[in-house]
């Protein structure tokens, strides 16, 4: 049998798609570099235990796994943040923070279902390690400048803060497993099940109203005022005030019309520790940029440093962005005049890309 299939979730990228992808990558990397971020390349294969150690909970089936010659479990990296945290805690253990790293690498995730999702995607991202939340503004500006380079007018960066949910949970004394269920319901805006779940919990009316309102507590900056009214403790008000301050700063930098908020954004509760954000562009059904603050990840590698970062999912952008058509100069030549044709091509390559094509006519001809 001819073996022409590729494994589930894999994809060949060809022709225009390929050009678009490289163009996007180049533009993104240029912005990252202009903010002073240094590129980092790590191996595609990590020990499975590296990820196990980094995440409290890890879905084993999500990773491509295999063995090395000593029987140790290896895995294809599922993100770049963990490898960078590892590098930072080892290779840079004697260096002074902050560290600014950027990357453009393929990451892997096993997809169980035939839902058209990809098992290998290219992540272009940055990590700013060693600075606390005063550096959130820098990371957000970088994210916004990056989205600007996509060339799509209609884009939005949506900002949330996982502390808003966490501080509320702590105040009403929900245990860890309750928090996880609640976070999942709120994050998926499962309004029906959320109401059912909140009902039997011993909450005051203001607290119940808070959690029930969270999924829809978003949109333009006016929602922050509403968030403040719903805040039933001082620390919650502080979180909103911080977001308000961030918003004012971003407005002063001219990003106003691209900023929205979602206080009901609480993914990966055990991972993110402060702001979380996602970027959306018109025409694309997935978020194309995502990131946030993760102040406890580095600690799991033995170096306690705060950090914030994001990555762009270049592959989702390819569907909505098109690279300009490629121009090629064509030289047609008859048999016996290969050298002449190649000579002309050599000169013409200074002007543009040249392809050679044999033909039946007696002369060499150039088509610009």
């Amino acid at each position: 049998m001819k073996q022409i299939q590729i494994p589930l979730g894999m994809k060949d990228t060809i022709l225009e798609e390929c050009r678009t992808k490289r163009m996007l990558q180049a533009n993104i990397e240029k912005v990252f570099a202009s903010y002073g971020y240094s590129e980092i390349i790590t191996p595609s294969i990590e020990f499975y235990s590296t990820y196990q150690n980094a995440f409290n909970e890890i879905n084993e089936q999500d990773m491509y796994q295999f063995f090395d010659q000593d029987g140790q479990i290896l895995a294809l990296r599922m993100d770049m943040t963990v490898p960078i945290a590892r590098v930072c805690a080892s290779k840079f253990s004697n260096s002074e923070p902050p560290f600014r790293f950027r990357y453009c690498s393929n990451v892997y995730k096993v997809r169980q279902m035939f839902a058209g999702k990809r098992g290998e995607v290219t992540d272009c991202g940055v990590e700013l390690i060693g600075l606390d939340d005063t550096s959130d503004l820098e990371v957000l500006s970088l994210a916004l400048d990056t989205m600007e380079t996509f060339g799509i007018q209609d884009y939005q960066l949506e900002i949330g803060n996982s502390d808003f949910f966490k501080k509320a949970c702590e105040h009403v004394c929900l245990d860890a497993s309750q928090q996880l269920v609640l976070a999942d319901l709120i994050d998926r805006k499962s309004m029906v099940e959320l109401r059912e779940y909140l009902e039997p919990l011993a909450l005051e009316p203001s607290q119940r109203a808070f959690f029930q309102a969270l999924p829809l507590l978003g949109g333009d900056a006016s929602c922050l005022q509403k968030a403040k009214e719903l805040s039933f403790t001082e620390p919650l008000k502080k979180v909103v005030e911080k977001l308000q301050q961030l918003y004012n700063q971003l407005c002063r930098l001219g990003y106003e019309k691209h900023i929205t908020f979602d206080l009901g954004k609480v993914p990966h509760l055990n991972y993110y520790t402060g702001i979380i954000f996602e970027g959306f562009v018109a025409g694309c059904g997935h978020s194309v940029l995502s990131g946030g603050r993760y102040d406890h990840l580095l600690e799991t590698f033995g170096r306690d440093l705060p950090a914030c970062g994001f990555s762009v999912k270049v592959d989702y952008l390819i569907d909505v962005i098109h690279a300009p058509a490629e121009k090629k100069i064509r030289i047609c030549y008859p048999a016996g005049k290969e050298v002449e044709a190649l000579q002309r091509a050599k000169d013409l390559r200074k002007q543009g890309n040249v392809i050679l094509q044999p033909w039946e006519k007696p002369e060499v001809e150039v088509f610009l």
Partner: protein
Amino acid sequence: MSLSVALTKGRLEKSTVNMLETCGYGIEKLRNKGRALVFPDTKKDIEYFLVKANDCITYVEHGVADIGVVGKDTLLEGGKDYYEMLDLKIGVCKFIVASLPEIDLMNKVGHITIGTKYPNVARRYFNDKSMDVEIIKIDGSVELSPILGLCDGIVDIMETGTTLKENGLVVLDDVCPISARVIVNKASFKLKRKEVMQFIDDLEGVVNHAQ
């Protein structure tokens, strides 16, 4: 901005269209379908298309449809990458566990097999009960499988219970209730928040009124 809405064909179709009509949407084309596949709303900037339940989730997850109307049964079995924003309270039924009366399924010692169209739902249910069961995927007439001796019990949808009764099966437990839900693509919710919320609010008004 215009909205595209994927409606589930079949069981839910008529009651969904009725609800949209009560909202004051222009659904004439959905009533007189002919051979068309896409049905523009005659009053609002909305396009409807009719799809199979499973495809409804796929279309919404990929953002081809901004909004979908689909049964909770399908949602429980499929992916999770969408917002589930409203219970339409139509197409109400439930998932149940059933078996022949002579089999004491819940207390059986030894290997247990369960036939179902919904392997994920069945697996989750028995996991929560700390029961180790083998699940056999069956595509139609699930009631047949215990009668023929393929399985000890089934997990299936029950509306009235008539089919089960006629085949001599008894309900052992309810797994969970089912009804039609409105799901929304995550990016659409961000980029078309106003339009999406309008659609949800309109339908929610009808749901609350019906109660």
